[in-house]
C-alpha cells in the first residue's frame, strides 16, 4: 500500500494549482459568474492547449489516458478554486458516456471536445430519479426511421452551452423497458432547453423532450450496454465530485484558520477561543477522514476491484457529510460576513449543498452502501 503521488502526479497537481492561482482568484471568478457569459471561453481554450481536456480519454481517441488518480488531482484543484467551467459536465459526464460507447461518431466528437471546440451535457436524471440510475420516465417510441422521444430531464448542467446532448429514455419492447441512450445536437427540433443560472454560479436547464424525432443513427447504446455506460460514468462522476468537495474542504479549513487567527473580538483573536479551536480541529478531522476514503475509493476504481462500487458509495456519503459540516462550521466561525455574496465561504457552501443532492442524497447513497455491503461483507468479510 502506498498513498503518495508519483512524480508525474505531483507535477500535474502543481501545474493545475499554479495555473488556477494565477488565473482564477475569487474576485475574477465572481466577475465571470456575474457576467453575461456562462463561463470563460479563453480559459477553456488555454486548458485545451495545456492538454487537460484530453486527460480522461484514451490515446486512440486523442487523449492522454490519465487514470482516476490524475482526474482526482485535477478536480481537487477545481473544487478548491470553485471553478465554474464545465470540466465536470463536458469531460466527465458527456465525454465519459461518449467514450464508453461504440458509436462511429465517438472519436471525431471526442477530438473536438479535447480541442475545446465542443461542449456537451448528459441528460439522464429526472425529477423522481433521486440518484437511482434505473429510475427514469422519459419514453422512446420506435418510428419508421428512428425514434420519438418524450419526457423531461431535470437540472441538466451545461445544457444551455452544449453543442451535443446525450439523452436517455425507455423504449417499450415486447413488454420490457429497454434503456436507450441517444446523442443529439442541442438544436434538434423539439428539444426545449429551459435555461437558468444555478445557485452555484453555473448554468443549467430543464430539458423538455417534446416529441423529439431522431434518426436511428443517433442511438448511442441500449440495454445492458447503455446501463453499463451510465453506471460507469456516474461512478467516475461521483468520485470526482468527492474530489471537488475535498479541494473545497481544504480551502475552507485554510481560510477559516487564517480568518480566526486575525479577526479579533472581545479583545482577542477568535482563534484563541477553545470552542472555536476544537470546531476547527473537527473540520480538520473531517477533511482528513474524507480524504482517506476518497483515496481508497479512487484506487479501488483504478483497480476495477469488485468492491469499487461499495467504496464509491462510502466515499460519497462521507465526503458529502464532511463537506457539509466543514462548510457550515466555516460559515459559523466567520460569522455574518460569510452569509454574504462578498466572501467565498458562502459560495463553497452552496456548491457543496447542491452537489450533495444532485445524484442522490446522502440517505440514498447510504442505503446503496448498505445493500452492497450486505452482498460483499456478509460471507466471511472482505479479503
Amino acid at each position, binding site marked *: 500500500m502506498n498513498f503518495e503521488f508519483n512524480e508525474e502526479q505531483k507535477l500535474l497537481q502543481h501545474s493545475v494549482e499554479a495555473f488556477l492561482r494565477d488565473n482564477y482568484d475569487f474576485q475574477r471568478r465572481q466577475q465571470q459568474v456575474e457576467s453575461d457569459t456562462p463561463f470563460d471561453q479563453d480559459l477553456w481554450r488555454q486548458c485545451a492547449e495545456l492538454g487537460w481536456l484530453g486527460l480522461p480519454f484514451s490515446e486512440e481517441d486523442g487523449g492522454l489516458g490519465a487514470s482516476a488518480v490524475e482526474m482526482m488531482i485535477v478536480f481537487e484543484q477545481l473544487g478548491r478554486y470553485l471553478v465554474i467551467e464545465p470540466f465536470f459536465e463536458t469531460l466527465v459526464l458527456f465525454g465519459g458516456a461518449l467514450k464508453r460507447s461504440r458509436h462511429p461518431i465517438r472519436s471525431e466528437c471526442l477530438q473536438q471536445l479535447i480541442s475545446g471546440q465542443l461542449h456537451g451535457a448528459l441528460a439522464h436524471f429526472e425529477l423522481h*430519479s433521486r440518484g437511482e440510475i434505473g429510475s427514469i420516465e422519459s419514453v422512446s417510441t420506435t418510428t419508421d426511421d428512428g425514434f420519438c422521444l418524450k419526457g423531461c430531464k431535470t437540472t441538466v448542467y451545461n445544457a444551455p452551452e452544449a453543442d451535443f446532448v446525450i439523452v436517455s429514455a425507455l423504449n417499450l419492447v415486447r413488454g420490457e423497458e429497454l434503456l436507450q441512450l441517444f446523442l443529439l445536437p442541442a438544436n434538434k427540433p423539439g428539444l426545449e432547453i429551459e435555461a437558468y443560472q444555478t445557485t452555484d454560479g453555473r448554468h*443549467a436547464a430543464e430539458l423538455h423532450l417534446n416529441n423529439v424525432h431522431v434518426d436511428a443513427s443517433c442511438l448511442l447504446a441500449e440495454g445492458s450496454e447503455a446501463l453499463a455506460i451510465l453506471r460507469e460514468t456516474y461512478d467516475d462522476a461521483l468520485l470526482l465530485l468527492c474530489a471537488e468537495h475535498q479541494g473545497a474542504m481544504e480551502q475552507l479549513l485554510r481560510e477559516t484558520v487564517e480568518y480566526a487567527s486575525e479577526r479579533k473580538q472581545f479583545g482577542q483573536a477568535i482563534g484563541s477561543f477553545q470552542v472555536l479551536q476544537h470546531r476547527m480541529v473537527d473540520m480538520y478531522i473531517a477533511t482528513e477522514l474524507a480524504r482517506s476514503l476518497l483515496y481508497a475509493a479512487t484506487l479501488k476504481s483504478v483497480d476495477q476491484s469488485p468492491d469499487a462500487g461499495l467504496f464509491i458509495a462510502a466515499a460519497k456519503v462521507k465526503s458529502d457529510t464532511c463537506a457539509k459540516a466543514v462548510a457550515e462550521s466555516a460559515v*459559523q466561525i466567520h460569522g455574518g460576513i460569510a452569509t454574504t*455574496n462578498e466572501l467565498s465561504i458562502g*459560495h463553497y*457552501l452552496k456548491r457543496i449543498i*447542491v452537489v450533495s443532492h444532485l445524484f442522490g*442524497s446522502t*440517505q440514498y447513497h447510504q442505503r446503496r452502501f448498505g445493500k452492497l455491503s450486505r452482498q460483499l461483507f456478509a460471507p466471511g468479510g472482505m479479503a
Partner: protein
Amino acid sequence: MDLALSAADIAFRDEVREFLKQSLTPSLKRSGDLMTSVFSNFESAMAWQAILAEKGWAAPDWPVEYGGTDWTVNQKIIYLKESKRAGAPSLLPMGIQMLGPILIRYGTEAQKHELLPRILSGEDVWCQGYSEPGAGSDLASLKMRAVADGDDYILNGSKIWTSFAHRSNKIFCLVKTDVDSKPQAGISFILVDLDSAGVTVAPIVSIDGEVEQCQVFFEDVRVSKDNLVGKENQGWEVAKCLLEFERGGYCYYAAIEKQLAQVRRLAAEEKTAEGWFYELDPVFSTRLAELEIEKLALEFTENRVNCLAEGKPGALTSLVKVAGTELSQKVDALALELRGTHLPLLQNEALSYGFEGGFIGSEHGLNIMNAYLNNRASTIYGGSAEIQRNIMAKQVLGL
C-alpha cells in the same frame, strides 16, 4: 400545574382563528408559507401590518393607550401560534417589537407621542444600528462616534447588518458619546433620519441573492440631541433591555412547526429513489419523528419560560434561542433532502408578494434552498450560539 386554556382563552383563540380566516388573503398566506428567513418579504409584511393595525392587533405588547392590547401572556402565545399556523407573514420587528417598547420605557412624552403612531401606521419604517464592521457579537467595542456640537451631535462611523435599511426611513443607533470611558460606558442610544445629509445605505447581497441586510455609513451627520432615547452615556442600559426584547420576542417553536408542516407536505408529494413517498420511508419518518419530538420539547420550554417570566424575558431566553435556532437548522437539512435535485434553482422573483407567474419544480419547496442558506445566520446574529453558551455558563451555571 395544568395545560388547560381558560374559557376566555378558548374564546380568544376562536376569535383569532376567525379573524385570520377572514383577513389572510391567499397572497399573504403564500408569502407567509414561503418565507425564506425570520422576515417576510417587505411588501407582504407591510400589507399585513396595515390589516392588523386596523384591527388594533399590530403591537400586542404595547400598552392599550399607545395602540397595543391588554392581552395576557397566554393570549399573546395563542395569537403568535395561531398566526404562524395559519401562515401569516411576520411583521418587521424593528419598529414594533424593538423600538416601540424602548420608547414606551425610556422615551420622552414628545417622542412617544410623535413616533409610536407612525410605527403602527407604517409611515415610519425603522432599522436597527447596533453591530459595526469588525464587531459582530461584541457590542461593547463599538466605534461610531457622536460628538456634541451645541444642541446637536455630529455622527461619524458605520453600522452593519442593519436589516431592511434599504426599505426604511429611520434608524436607531448605538453611538459612542464618550470615547474616554470604559467600553460599555459612554454609549448613547439615538434616533436618526436615514434621509439626513451624510447618510449612505449600501445593500448587502446575501448568498441566496436577496437583500435583507445593509451597511449604513454616517459622515458628519447632524442630529438633534432631542433624538436621544434615555440619557447621554446611558445607552448601554437601553441596549441591553432591547437585546432582551429582541431575544425574547420570538416564538421559535411556532416557526419550526411551520417548517415541519412544510416538510410533511413535501414528504407526501415527493418520492424516494425506491419509488415510495418520503412519508412512507422508515428512515425519513424516524428523522422526522426525532425533530417533531424536539419541537415539542422546545414548545413546552418556551411555554414554561413565558409562564415563569410573566412576559418578561430573562436569562432562559439564551436557552430558547440556542435550542430554537439549532433545531430549525436541523429541519432545514431534512427539507433539503426533499427538494433534492431542484436545489440549484433560486427563483427569488417567484417568492415575491403577489407573484402569479410560472416557475420550475414544486411550489411547496420553492423557498427551501433560500431558507437553508438564510437560516445559517440564525446561530450568528442576535448573539451567536457560542456567545449564548458563554452567557449560560456564566449566568446559569456560575462557571
